[in-house]
């Protein structure tokens, strides 16, 4: 009968994995053979894996975020994960403001700290210039300067990791 929508919109379709290159297909085929599985699904972008034996069923690949992005849409590289990871580092010194960072009190002077230096809490590590005012960035704990992550004179944004103290 004609399906009135009061009774019969259809649930979504079953699906299988698709869109893989030949080598990948061959590799998966070989794995099927080797393991005696009847099915392997495999995801991309936000990882997914599914293996099955015997029956064939429908299962969703978890939704990947379809958000547009200037980078992605232009096919440009899209990862600075390592940089992001540092924000979770216990000794990370994050920028308290947007501005330009300086390693030394004035041009030509020695830097406040160098990698390897021991620092005390409250010791000035950098200056950040914002709106023509120099703001000191101080160490929050004692330790050794393990890494300095921004170059002298570089612009920094809020929360950007400037250095690691260990």
């Amino acid at each position, binding site marked *: 009968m004609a399906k009135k929508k009061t009774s019969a919109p259809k649930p979504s379709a079953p699906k299988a994995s698709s869109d893989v290159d030949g080598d990948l297909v061959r590799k998966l085929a070989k794995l099927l053979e080797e393991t005696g599985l009847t099915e392997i699904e495999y995801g991309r972008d936000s990882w997914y894996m599914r293996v099955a034996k015997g029956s064939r069923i429908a299962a969703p690949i978890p*939704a990947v*975020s*379809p958000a*547009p992005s*200037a980078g992605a849409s232009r096919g440009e590289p899209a990862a600075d994960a390592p940089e992001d990871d540092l924000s979770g580092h216990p000794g990370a010194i994050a920028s308290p403001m947007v501005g330009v960072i300086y390693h030394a009190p004035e041009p030509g002077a020695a830097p406040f700290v160098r990698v390897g230096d021991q620092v005390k809490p409250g010791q000035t590590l950098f200056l950040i210039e*914002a709106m023509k005012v120099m703001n000191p960035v101080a160490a929050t704990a004692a330790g050794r300067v393990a890494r300095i992550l921004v170059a002298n004179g570089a*612009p920094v944004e*809020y*929360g*950007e990791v400037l250095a690691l103290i260990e």
Partner: protein
Amino acid sequence: MFEKVLIANRGEIALRIERACREMGIATVAVHSTADADAMHVRLADESVCIGPPPARDSYLNAQAILSAAAISNADAIHPGYGFLSENADFATMVEEHGFTFIGPTRDHIRLMGDKIAAKQAMKEAGIPCIEGSDGPVPDEDAAVVAADKIGYPVIIKAVAGGGGRGMKIAHSRDDVRSFYKIASAEAEAAFGNGAVYIERCLLNPRHIEIQVLADNHGAIVHLGDRDCSLQRRHQKVLEEAPSPAINQSERAAIGKIAVDAMRAIGYHNVGTIEFLYEAGKFYFIEMNTRLQVEHPVTEMICGLDLVREMVRVAWGSPLGYTQEDIRFHGHAIECRITAEDPLTFQPKPGRVASYHAPGGLGVRVDSALYAGYRVPPYYDSMIGKLIVHGASRNECLMRLRRALGEYVITGMDTTIPFYQRLLAEPAFVNGTYDVHWLGHYISGTKPGPG
């Protein structure tokens, strides 16, 4: 033309401005709080700068951080969007003093219109109709009656020092004025220590109708017609349409001309909106907004202009290049402000968008920064998108709105889409007979009060 514009805003309006800049070949800088690192306006901009933690006062209202971001990204100009710092004359001043162009009106006009008493005075002098009143306190009953007779009934007797309804009485006749004068004065004395009262025309069932103006820096000024924003909940606009179903072509032209003349008189630049109450064929000035408005798309749809592009062009110093006679209005447009709120109680409910599918096809425009997987942060306004439809007639527009709302899929969180679907079944909306009080009564389930 500007090479790079910093957008000092977030959400759909940041995206809206980015789109306009991109279409003009201008690079964009997005600023964002840490809560918005994954926001669409950040993803789609050419560059982004994190300017602070989630609270708006530390990020989107942090003028210093925004100016630092403009400095380190070498932006030429700053577009403030709406809300946040858009009507902050001090911010506009700082922007200019740091050598950037502020894409909006002059700081002086922002300041003038930000002072509601000075604004009313200036607009009155510039020929904008304001509400008739006694021009100061009335000393006694007889003076009150004289003033009320001159204004016409009903009138409202208000405490000069007042607010909040105390010392406020509506008088429908001379007898009422005589009866209520002393009561109002006594209430005012008791409440505010000042018994002085004044008299104004009382609007019972006004509509909110506003006029969009646009001016370049060379003396060219046009109005882009009217918008009807009478559907309000707690003084927040909920749905806007253009043109207003309540006024006709000649009223539109007349109030438009008055607006243009007033803007010329005060030397206004860039975009602005003059808001009026409208009742019984007359307009009464409320206030002027010296910025782009949320509801600007309905104007764009009926007059075929890109208002953000025009703002940028005019801020650069380009001439309008057209006159009032070149502005033509086509059809009808309606905008729904979709919010992350319970569609019955309007309680804000931020959450994660599980799936997202925007409506498409002829006459449908969606301005939204949502995407599947996006988490709506709890720190900011609950508006998550605007659905704008355009049709050859108001009826076609309503039918298209119904169709588009039915296609709009946002799962994983509550939105007000179902509210708008219900609204489309209400005769007062469909017939366009609503006033500024109607929606409040509709939502609370109460009957409108006596007219």
